[in-house]
């Protein structure tokens, strides 16, 4: 594998809209994604997956498969040399299933062959005998059914002791007087379907044996070092014998936090002593990675007659699927943000995530805040209606801000301009309704040519939401950066921050250029081999953390070079954000100064046209104001807002992984629909730049707030157009029509 450093960044410091450093290779097709890699003597790996959501494995017979043409290896759990289980936070997931399978598509065996077709044919000859078991598919009943993990891997981690079977984590936040009464009460039950990250680049990578017992894995991932730390013990290798290198990433959105082919490719490569490439197809991608947690949320809002929130009571049930992944943190996030960016003196919030045999869930952009935002914003509109108060005024009246507190007792010490984003979004001019006749492409139903204007009603919706930036609850979250500064002023920056498309490579280079005052800066390949961990490209943390680490390393390098008389230096620095501590397991209150580091908020206004007779929608226009701290690259920031908005719009209108008895029934882009060019309206973005005091250059993460808020805002517009409650997303035509 050849790896080269990035080209030099010719222009741009912090605050400039510098074109992407990888832009040219991406438009010419030269950029090497993880599925593009090849090596001499390379074999193709293939994963044999469970056709059952829950079954006992009676036997696995590989004898026929091993003799098939072109086949070099057929592996099962018996061939895993080290730990049999791995996991992002809890090692509860088998490398290859043994004894039983707990979800549809769970990996059971591996094949390596010279051509993928040979691998597929051999895979078809592996005889796995299953004894189907009753799947746990109803999260509301899961806590009464037999445990899927009798050893309770997530227990005894300082979480609340919940003895019910199949609880991944439950959290209770008791704030003020949870029984306090208001003068007006509104309640509702809300549901969110399973959303998929649906990144376009399928899971893929190349594992190359190093000839000395170790392995190099070139893969699309979000966190190189945590991959290494999961892979090495299962291979019975030392961490330094496993080197994870970032290959080109075709989108991530949380879906690459967990391992995909890393371990499997490495196992096959070490077994065959040949490079092994694994590329999932789209169907396999849908079953092979975690999804956004589906949720059911019961909410009750009590307020005074003039609209001041008195007490908010919320119960959240999340379906985590078969393995823990990052479910414990999603459970906590959903609880932390259940009230929304509003000040309330009293609250009772219960958040529970359960194990089931449904598709496994974990990280996706918005991470627990998306689900609750859909609920709290529907509740705020409902309350406004009950009180006959303008919904924007109601939000402003209750807006949280610096000095206010979350239900966890944590004071807002940094910036959080909730009232400002509400006002700025509400001020945006919305377009006039277009005249008829129009091309059907400009009407609900689009290319389907279903209306010339019949049945079309217009609605305007509004929502506001917020989310934490960075890892929370005591996680030791850090990012390393290393700078090699030569005597001539040229520099090479090493940072393992995963460039997943969000633009962190530019952040690193723009910061280095700002600090070093030089354009002669290149970014070295992202790898575990040359630099310490950067943490994950997730939780809207990477810009903040990478900027902090690179800034500190650059400043240290300049200082050191000055001290040694201008000779070349090579320094590595670790950056940490302010320390957090866990929530109290019994009360959900903070145990130190903070459980979260910082927050970012966004408000959004949506105009939609709905064909109320057919239940079809065209979103016409979206305007948003977002709290971004400081925009390191404004063009990239608006790109994040537009893209994040599209994902929330998708959840509102069309995106859902469907299941039957735990089996996914729409694992394709034919039936799992994401927005097309005809579904996304123009997005007007207002950036509110208020520097975050604890952050380098005052930056905040920007990736998640648009996704958090857009689902809620789009559905609000649909409610305004239809007069229907619409309590579940994605909203189906049936719901609008009232069937």
């Amino acid at each position, binding site marked *: 594998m050849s790896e080269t450093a990035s080209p030099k960044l010719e222009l741009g410091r912090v605050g400039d809209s510098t074109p992407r450093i990888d832009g040219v290779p991406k438009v010419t097709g030269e950029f090497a994604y993880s599925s593009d890699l090849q090596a001499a003597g390379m074999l193709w790996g293939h994963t044999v997956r469970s056709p059952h959501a829950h079954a006992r494995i009676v036997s696995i017979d590989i004898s026929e498969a091993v003799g098939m043409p072109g086949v070099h290896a057929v592996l099962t759990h018996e061939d895993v040399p080290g730990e049999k289980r791995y996991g992002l936070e809890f090692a509860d997931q088998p490398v290859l299933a043994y004894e039983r399978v707990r979800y549809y598509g769970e990996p059971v065996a591996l094949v390596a062959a010279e051509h993928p077709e040979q691998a597929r044919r051999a895979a078809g000859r592996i005889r796995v005998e299953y004894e189907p078991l009753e799947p746990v598919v109803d999260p509301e009943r899961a806590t009464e059914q037999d445990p899927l993990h009798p050893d309770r891997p997530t227990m005894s981690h300082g979480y609340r002791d919940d003895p019910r079977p199949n609880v991944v984590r439950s959290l209770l936040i008791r704030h003020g007087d949870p029984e306090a009464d208001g003068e007006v009460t509104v309640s509702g039950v809300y549901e969110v379907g399973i959303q998929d990250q649906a990144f376009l680049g399928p899971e893929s990578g190349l594992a190359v044996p190093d000839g000395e017992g170790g392995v190099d894995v070139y893969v699309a991932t979000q966190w190189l070092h945590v991959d290494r730390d999961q892979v090495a013990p299962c291979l019975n290798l030392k961490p330094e014998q496993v080197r994870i290198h970032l290959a080109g990433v075709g989108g991530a959105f949380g879906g690459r936090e967990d391992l995909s082919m890393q371990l499997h490719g490495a196992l096959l490569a070490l077994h065959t002593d040949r490079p092994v490439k694994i590329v999932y197809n789209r*169907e396999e991608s849908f079953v092979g990675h975690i999804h956004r947690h589906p949720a059911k949320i019961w909410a009750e809002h009590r307020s005074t007659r003039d609209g001041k929130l008195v007490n908010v009571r919320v119960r959240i049930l999340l379906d985590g699927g078969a393995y823990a992944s990052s479910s414990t943190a999603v459970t906590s996030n959903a609880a932390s943000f259940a009230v929304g960016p509003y000040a309330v003196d009293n609250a009772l919030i219960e958040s529970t995530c359960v194990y089931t045999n449904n598709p496994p869930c974990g990280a996706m952009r918005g991470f627990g805040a998306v689900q609750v935002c859909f609920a709290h914003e529907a509740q705020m509109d409902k309350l406004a209606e009950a009180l006959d108060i303008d919904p924007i005024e109601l939000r402003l009246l209750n807006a949280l801000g610096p000095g206010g507190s979350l239900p966890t007792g944590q004071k807002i010490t940094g910036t959080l301009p909730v009232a400002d984003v509400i006002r700025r979004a509400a001020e945006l001019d919305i377009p006039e309704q277009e005249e008829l006749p129009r091309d059907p492409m400009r009407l609900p139903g689009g*290319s389907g*040519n279903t209306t*010339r204007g*019949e049945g079309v009603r217009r609605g305007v919706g509004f929502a506001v939401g917020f989310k934490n930036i960075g890892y929370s609850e005591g996680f030791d979250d850090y990012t390393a950066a290393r700078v090699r500064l030569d005597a001539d002023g040229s520099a090479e920056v090493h940072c393992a921050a995963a460039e997943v498309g969000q633009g962190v490579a530019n952040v690193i280079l723009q910061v280095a250029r700002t600090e070093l005052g030089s354009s002669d800066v290149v970014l070295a390949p992202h790898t575990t081999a040359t630099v310490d961990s950067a943490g994950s490209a997730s939780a809207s943390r990477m810009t903040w953390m990478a900027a902090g680490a690179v800034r500190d390393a650059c400043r240290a390098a300049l200082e050191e070079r000055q001290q040694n008389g201008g000779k070349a230096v090579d320094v590595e620095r670790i950056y940490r954000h302010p320390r957090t501590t866990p929530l109290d397991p019994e009360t959900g209150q903070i145990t130190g100064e903070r459980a979260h580091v910082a927050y970012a908020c966004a408000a959004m206004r949506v105009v939609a046209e709905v064909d109320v007779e*057919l239940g079809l929608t065209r979103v016409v226009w979206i305007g948003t104001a977002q709290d971004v701290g400081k925009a390191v690259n404004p063009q990239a920031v608006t790109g994040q807002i537009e893209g994040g908005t599209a994902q929330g719009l998708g959840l509102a209108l*069309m995106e859902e992984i469907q299941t039957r008895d735990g089996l996914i029934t*729409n694992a394709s882009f034919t039936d799992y*629909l994401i927005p097309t060019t005809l*579904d996304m309206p123009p997005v007007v973005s207002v950036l509110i730049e208020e520097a975050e005091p604890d952050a380098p250059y005052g930056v905040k993460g920007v990736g998640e707030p648009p996704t958090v808020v857009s689902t809620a805002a789009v559905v609000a517009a649909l409610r305004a157009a239809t007069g229907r409650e619409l309590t579940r997303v994605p909203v189906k035509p049936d719901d609008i029509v009232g069937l």
Partner: protein
Amino acid sequence: MDVLTPRSLEEALRLKAERPDAVPIQGGTDVMVELNFDRARPAVLLNLNEVAELRGWSQADGKVWLGAGLTYSEAMEPKLAEALPALAEASRTVGGPQIRNRGTIGGNLGTASPAGDALPPLLVCGAEVKLASVLGERVVSLEEFLVGPKRNVLAEDELILGVTVDTGDESRQTFMKVGPRNAMVIAVVSLAVRVDGDLRAAFGSAGPVSKLVRAELADADSFPQRVAEAASPIDDVRGTASYRRHALRILTKRALDRCLV
């Protein structure tokens, strides 16, 4: 697996007679998905791309001939769109431009999916399908051709040559397709309507096969209900039976409003 690429219709029919298990492939929009996802491994693929006789269209005496290799993009071109507006509208709803550039009318007939977008417009235009083998040609009405979901009367030694459709004198027609997003969808339900002396509607994705419903002009008021009642939709991953029936009523009403001017 073998790939056979005939250069003429005669050669294609001969190869099909010799290898009746050969799967014809033209635009590949259905067959390639089966291959890419390991759902089918035919012993032989019969590549029809080089058979010039299957291409193009022609018009004479109120009839239009559509070669089996006619693409959706070609069906959208102004001259043909004028003769067969519902087919042009249906074609505009098919996939994205890449699919419309490759997918063909013949492929839609061969696959015989209940969701085939070309089928309702062809049904309301009285399409007759011409089939051929080395033994000769035969013509069957499209209604007879479609016998079940993904099943048709094509014999294993036959190929689809094309269809003849009746453009009518004063025909007014339209096509509509419901999907949960505004482009690139498989029909949740679709409908073609033609008004030309009588009322004709044909629906897709609302029964095991696309089906034609006819009525007198005087029965326009009850026609939406009749069309909905003629359907036998199911619940599936794309939609519910009750929605499909409901949508058919709305679509038929709107289609009549467009066509009864």
